[in-house]
C-alpha cells in the first residue's frame, strides 16, 4: 500500500468508521396522525454507564441456585413513560421524568414489544425498535416529555463479579422533551390508541 493510499484511508476513516455511535429516534402516532417523527432522544448517565459496565464485566460466580444477570430489556421489563413537563431540559444526571402522567414513574403502556431487530452486518446499522401502545382511554393529558426505561447494572469495577442475581427494576435510560426542542407538545386524543416507537441504533460514525 502506497503512502498516498494510507493517507486516503486515514481521511476516509476519520469521516466514517473510527468510532462507535449510539443514537435513538422516537416516533409517536395516534391513528394515522404522526405526532412526533423520528425525533432524537437525549441519553442520560445510566445509558452511558450501562455500556461501559458491560465492557468491563468479569464473571458470574457459582451460586447455591441459578444466578441471573438481567439484560436491559429483561423479558419485556423495559418501559416507556410519558410526562407533561415542558420547562426542564434533559441533563446527564436526570433519573426520572419531571412530571410523569400517572403515578411515578408513569402510566405503563398496555402493550410492549421489541417490534424489530435489525442485523447490521450488511449495512452497518444495528438497531432494535421498542414499541409501546396505550389503549384508548388509558392515558390523557398534554405530552411534553417521554422516556425509555431499561434494566441496568451500573457496576464500575474492572472485571466485576456477581454471586447473586442482579436487579430487575428499570431506570431512565434516555429522554425526549419539548424543552430540548425535540418535539412540540400535543394533547392526547383519548378516543385513539397512542403508539411510541423508540429506535435504538448502533452504527459506525
Amino acid at each position, binding site marked *: 500500500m502506497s503512502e498516498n493510499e494510507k493517507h486516503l484511508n486515514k481521511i476516509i*476513516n476519520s469521516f466514517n468508521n473510527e468510532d462507535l455511535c449510539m443514537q435513538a*429516534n422516537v416516533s409517536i402516532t395516534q391513528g394515522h396522525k404522526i405526532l412526533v417523527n423520528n425525533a432524537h432522544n437525549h441519553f442520560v448517565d445510566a445509558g452511558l454507564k450501562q455500556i*461501559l459496565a458491560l465492557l*468491563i464485566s468479569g464473571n458470574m460466580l457459582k451460586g447455591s441456585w441459578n444466578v441471573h444477570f438481567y439484560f436491559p430489556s429483561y423479558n419485556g421489563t423495559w418501559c416507556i413513560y410519558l410526562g407533561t413537563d415542558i420547562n426542564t431540559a434533559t441533563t446527564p444526571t436526570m433519573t426520572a421524568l419531571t412530571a410523569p402522567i400517572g403515578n411515578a414513574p408513569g402510566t405503563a403502556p398496555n402493550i410492549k414489544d421489541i417490534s424489530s431487530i435489525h442485523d447490521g452486518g450488511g449495512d452497518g446499522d444495528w438497531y432494535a425498535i421498542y414499541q409501546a401502545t396505550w389503549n384508548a382511554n388509558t392515558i390523557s393529558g398534554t405530552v411534553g416529555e417521554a422516556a425509555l426505561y*431499561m434494566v441496568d447494572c451500573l457496576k464500575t469495577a474492572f472485571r466485576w463479579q456477581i454471586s447473586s442475581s442482579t436487579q430487575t427494576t428499570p431506570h431512565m435510560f434516555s429522554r425526549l422533551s419539548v424543552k430540548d426542542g425535540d418535539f412540540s407538545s400535543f394533547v392526547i386524543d383519548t378516543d385513539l390508541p397512542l403508539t411510541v416507537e423508540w429506535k435504538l441504533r448502533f452504527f459506525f*460514525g
Partner: protein
Amino acid sequence: MDHLKTRDRIAFAQYYDGVPIESASERIRIQGRVTISQGDGEKKEIIIDRAHNKWVKGGLKGLLSHFVLSDWVSDRQRGLSANALSIYLGTDTTTATTHDLTTLKTPIGTSPGTDANTKTGEGLTTISDGHHRIAYTAIFNPGTVSGTVGEVALYLGMPQDLTKYGVVDASFTQVMVSRCSVADGDFSSFVIDTSKSLVISWEVFIAYE
C-alpha cells in the same frame, strides 16, 4: 481532554430515514485509543501514543445483543466480557480495517495470536459530567513476541445473539471488537525489541457528542 483531537469533535451531517442528524448533543460516541510502550521506568519508550482504533461488527453486534436479550442464567461460574479479554498483535501493513473484519490479518503466533502474559484493566472513571473512561492493559514479557507490528486488535467476550428476549447460559464468546493498523494510517510499523517488555493500553471513552 487531550485525547480528543479536533477531528474527533466534528459532527458531520448525516441522514437517517430522511431526517437530518446534525445536532452534536443527541448521540453517544464511543472511542478507543491505543498506546504501546516498551521498557520500564526511565527507559520506557512510547512507540504509539493514543492511536485511534476502528470498531468492527463484532463490537456492535455485541452491544445490540446486550439490549435485546432477556437474561443470563447459570448455576456455575461463567465468564462475561472482560473475562475473555485479549489484545493480539499482527504483522499486516496493507489491509485496512473494514466493518466485517473478524480477526487480525496476520497474527503473531498461532491464530488469533500470542496471548499476553498479563491482562488487566481499569474500572469506570468519570472524567467530567457525561464523559467516562475504562481501560484494558496487556503486558508481553521480554522475548514473548517478536516481529514487525503492523496491526493490533482488542478481543472481548461479547454476546452475539439477536434473539428477542433470548436467554444465555454459556460464557460470552471472545470476538474481535476493534483494530488499530498501519494500513489505516493509525501508526507506523515497528520492530519489537525482544529484550524489553511490551505494554499495550487500550482506553475506551464514552461521551455525549
